[in-house]
């Protein structure tokens, strides 16, 4: 029964995601139709012949009816064919996959850093509402939310890389090649995205803990003499997990979707920097592919979070 209800719950979520994905595809497809200027002209530059123009237009299918173009776009995308980059002539899907490991490294390490900071800080702050320590956490996290990530990145480069010389300022080494170099290089960008995410998450964790700690069952648990650690662990934190999971998922998906500015600052060869370069070069097929991939990752992360909800809180799958 439990397994069945989880399956039904997830089935609904998957169907829902499929609808969202179709919507994303409409938007991504429309991207090229909506940009000012003719994408074929932009691809060719100012000097081209009419034959070259017609050939590229036909090759990119832009001379066919819109609906037909859209259906073929969806069909190709579902089979992993995202077209060919204007700029490099390489397959978009392959280019995106090449960059994925760098971004995944950054996102996972960043979220771990965020959790390590935000969970203790938020829980402590929530349990000590109104005390000095709570005020300190709130002020610091508010400041953290207000700091632009590129500025924090520059600060870390200036202080930790150039000033102290502890870590390299930029670049990427795959973990499979040299785990030590990988760790040294991922540290600063991950700290940058992690601290910014931590500031946001701390506030959510605090609020979630605060709400639960005012609930009747927590008061009951306390009044029946349970030790504070048990009340916190079993009653407060467990019930606060749902909003914490939600915000963690959102932060993870956001970083996976490309922390463009941080990747540019640290010369990190991930999806964010790829997207940045693609936009700068008006490389529409690549921009479309990157946006679609980001959307898919966002949906996947949300699906996983949904599945975890139903594990953490059985009430969810019944609703």
């Amino acid at each position, binding site marked *: 029964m439990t397994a069945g209800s989880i399956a039904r719950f997830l089935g609904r979520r998957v169907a829902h995601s499929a609808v969202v994905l179709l919507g994303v595809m409409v938007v991504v497809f429309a991207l090229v139709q909506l940009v*000012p200027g003719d994408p074929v002209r932009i691809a060719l530059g*100012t000097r081209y012949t009419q034959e070259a123009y017609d050939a590229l237009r036909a090759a990119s299918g832009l001379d066919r009816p819109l609906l037909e173009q859209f259906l073929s776009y969806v069909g190709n995308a579902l089979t992993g064919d995202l077209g060919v980059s204007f700029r490099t002539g390489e397959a978009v899907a392959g280019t995106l996959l090449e960059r994925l490991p760098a971004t995944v490294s950054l996102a996972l390490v960043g979220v771990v850093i965020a959790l390590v900071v935000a969970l203790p800080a938020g829980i402590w702050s929530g349990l000590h509402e109104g005390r000095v320590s709570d005020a300190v956490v709130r002020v610091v996290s508010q400041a953290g939310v207000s700091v632009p990530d590129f500025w924090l990145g520059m600060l870390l480069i200036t202080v930790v890389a150039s000033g102290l010389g502890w870590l390299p*300022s930029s670049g990427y080494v795959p973990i499979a090649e040299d785990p030590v170099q990988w760790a040294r290089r991922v540290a600063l960008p991950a700290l940058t995205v992690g601290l910014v995410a931590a500031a946001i998450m701390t506030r959510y964790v605090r609020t979630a803990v605060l709400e639960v700690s005012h609930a009747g069952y927590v008061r009951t648990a306390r009044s029946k003499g349970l030790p504070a650690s048990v009340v916190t662990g079993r009653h407060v934190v467990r019930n606060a997990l749902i909003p914490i999971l939600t915000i963690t998922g959102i932060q993870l998906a956001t970083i996976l979707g490309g922390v463009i500015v941080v990747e540019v600052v640290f010369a990190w060869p991930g999806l964010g920097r790829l997207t940045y370069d693609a936009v700068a070069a008006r490389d529409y097929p690549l921009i479309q592919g990157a946006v679609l991939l980001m959307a898919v990752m966002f949906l996947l992360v949300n699906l996983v979070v949904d599945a975890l909800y139903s594990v953490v809180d059985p009430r969810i799958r019944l609703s």
Partner: protein
Amino acid sequence: MRQTMRQTLRQTRVLAGATAGLLLLTACSGGGEDVDLDGGGDGASGAGAEASGPVLRAAIGGEPDQLDPNKTSSYFSFQVLENVFDTLVEPDENLDMQPALAESWETSDDGLTWTFHLRDDVTFHDGSEFTADDVVYSFDRIVDEELSPSWRFGAVEDITAVDDRTVEITVSQPSPNLLSSLGGFKGLAIVEQANVESGDITTAPVGTGPFSVADYTSGESIDLVANPDYWGGAPEIGGVTYTFISEGATAIAALQGGEIDWTDSVPVQQLEQIQGDEAVETGVVPSNDYWYVALNEKREPWDDVRARQAVAYAIDREAIIQAVSFGTATPNQLAIPQESSWFTEYDQYSTDVDRAKGLLAEAGVTSATVDFLATSEYPETVTAAQIIADNLAPLGITVNIRTVDFATWLAEQGEGNFDAFMLSWLGNIDPDDFYYAQHHSTGGSNYQGYANPEVDRLLDAARTETDTAARKDLYAQAATTIADEASYIYLYNPSVIQAWSPQLEGYTARSDRAIRFRDVTLAE
């Protein structure tokens, strides 16, 4: 800041951003503190295990789109390819053409046949011998496939290999600019047919230059190793590793921290501070790119030379330069910078509002409105337009700045829908490239509609004049008239700005933005 691409196409002027990629950011690299040739960035390389010298770590502002020199228009590609390929002849620091793969040449008495004698000690990186057939193949490829440098062959009628060491080129009219057309930049590189036909040239090009491409990891780095058989002598350094850092502050931090040895990703607003740092050497040289304003002479009152001159006298170049480049650009009232042997002294226009008012009164203009075309693709056009608007206000001229995307900008320019615009031309070397298309009454890029029979005559004569001194004199006359009559109102030459470690010796920043590492040494 948009040093992005060096466009070499004469007609394409700044167009580039759109196609090439660049952008304004520059780079910094990231590379590696522990890069050595056979280990460094990724296990795949290793080609240069026997190379001896230290490896230069260079950070460029972005990643090349491809490594085929005849096809790419991205400056990031040329920053790498400058060190991998050779041309028949090549520009020295003053942009005069010098022998390279061709060790000598002569022209027939009628000036219509050029005979190039090739070096006999050149091999490609894969060991195959370089011959006249490779030159013919490369040039035919550019012309037949209409690759981006093909316009440079406009006067060329035929290219033949007389024997293995001799190439003969016939032209339709005497062409004193043929050398710069054939060797002005690495877009004219001599490539290897097998490398092209296998398709490998886009990521693993085979050239004849001082370094060969050992490894290319997309998004991360390109590794070059020294070519021990280079005809000009093997480089002292063991190789070059390029990384891509678009953020200038990161690049400078990496340079100061000893992670890289060279970068052109330099934030201009930090230039003074960087110049004060003993751990960093800087090179700041006016480039042979230039920015200008043009007024539409098909519209009133700009058909009147006095009205155009009034604008030229009212503009405050220094203020524009401060705003667009933090003072790093060099004001110039003609197109060609001082470093070039084609430079002509000219300083007719100092900012003089009274004189501007007088000229406008003579032209009978009491007030005017200017539709000023600017584009966010090149933010300096927007910034400068604001200053120009301010400069012209006291004359009773109202400037309406119209900022559009670059595709629209090009269309509006082409259709003549503007009173004024500002843009630049990049990467020119020969004076014909600087003046003919822009100011000849039949010139393909004369969007402002300038027509002066005397200038046409001078430009036509200069185009075929084979005596260099006489030719220089013709261009000096033409350029002076062009500026006197304000066909273009020239503003400035932006600077090439690069920074490197004091350990790097023998490197020079060049006005044509070519990055040459073949003669440098690097202290270990």
